[in-house]
């Protein structure tokens, strides 16, 4: 354990190694580490922002869904109203049609009845004349009793 020139050489070696470290090791390592730190900080901030944006988007979507739901409700209401209206309209139309049909039917019936009555009247007149002729056996002249006969016909 004697002191010798190793002391000086070791001292010089240390200076050189420190210089190496200062020049070639420390700056690039620290630079990389600082850059990564910034990057990570940025990433965290970005993720925070994204989270906030997501929450905003969710809120907006909810809002939109709510609006859409309201609108849909409105449309359904309108449809219901319109449906009722159409139904009423149809009902009214049907009723009117029926009335028209009834009136037409009644007119037809009365016309047919009149016609039948006229025919019947004519037939009855001739039958009456025929009957009377047979009863009176030629006694009654058609010409003479025409007036009486007409009165009879009218009374039928």
């Amino acid at each position: 354990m004697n002191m010798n020139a190793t002391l000086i050489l070791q001292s010089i070696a240390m200076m050189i190694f420190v210089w190496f470290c200062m020049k070639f090791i420390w700056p690039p390592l620290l630079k990389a580490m600082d850059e990564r730190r910034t990057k990570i900080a940025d990433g965290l901030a970005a993720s925070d922002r994204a989270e906030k944006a997501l929450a905003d988007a969710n809120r907006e979507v909810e809002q939109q869904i709510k609006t859409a739901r309201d609108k849909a409700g409105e449309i359904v209401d309108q449809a219901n109203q319109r449906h009722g209206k159409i139904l009423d309209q149809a009902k009214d139309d049907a009723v009117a049609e029926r009335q028209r049909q009834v009136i037409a039917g009644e007119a037809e019936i009365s016309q047919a009845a009149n016609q039948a009555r006229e025919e019947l009247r004519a037939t009855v007149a001739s039958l009456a004349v025929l009957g009377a002729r047979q009863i009176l056996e030629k006694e009654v002249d058609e010409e003479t009793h025409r007036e009486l006969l007409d009165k009879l016909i009218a009374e039928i």
Partner: protein
Amino acid sequence: MSSGSEAPTSGEYIQHHLQNLTFGQHPDGSWGLAHGAAEAAAMGFWAIHVDTLAWSLVLGLSFYFIFRNTAKKANSGVPTRFQALIEMVVEFVDTSVKESFHGTSRLIAPLALTLFVWVFFMNFMDLIPVDWLPHVASSLNVPYQKVVPTTDVNATLGMAITVFILIIIYSIRFKGVGGFLGELVFNPLNPKELGMPKAAWPLVMAFNFLLEIVGLLAKPVSLGLRLFGNMYAGELIFILIALVFTAGSGVIGAGLSATFGEHIPAWFWVVACVAVFATLWANMKEKLNNRNTLCLLLAEMLVIGGLAFVGGQLMHFGWAAFHLIIVTLQAFIFMMLTIVYLSMASEHH
């Protein structure tokens, strides 16, 4: 374990392990390696410890290349595991520097990193079993090999001297030559503030200077000698454990000696290694659960290693585990003290 054919005595063994490989000029004028402590001492100051310097350089260069490689590949993307490890060390040093050093300096953080890692590497050499590298060296006809540079006082004081130079440079840079010298002579007793007569000033200043210069010189000395003392003591304990173990002397080492006589045959170690390896292999292939593995390992160590394990290996392991803390702690202390001394040098007080 020496190069000689005869088994060394305990004293010779220890001395051999504590002797550096010294290169210098012999008293007769020829240059060469010293054989023995006496020859090394006779070489005087202008000799060098080849092993200390070589290992320092090898370890310093490993530090440089490992960190340089990582630094070149470093980017702000996802780091590899190794890069993360390196960055952890750098971050740790950077934090320590920022906490302790309040001035501005481009030098101080790289300086701290270099010292921490380099000193740690040099200390770590202590954990390589003490006989391995000297044994390899002696089979290559290198008579001495002390592989832990920090157990050489020249290495630790050499680094401390660099730090001392930096302390002076920093003092002058931050306080100016006048400020630096003023601090030396006007502390701790300031004649101006104490209102002393002018005639008494030189006396007080001389007294101050005496105190302050001791304080100043104590810094590098304490820095270097603390590291040296710790590592030297640790190394010595490893040597003593190895001595007990390999010499097969004493109660603890008696087990193996009783079984195998003076020399433990090579096949014994081969069998031991294979058995332990097989156990661990089975565990990794999940053919054995951890509990059984541990039981088996313990059984193997007790059976195969016998008392030798309980003696030498266990002691060696225990001290190595403890020393691992010392190794790291001393590297950290060396770094921290350097920062603190330079911080003190750059502040007015």
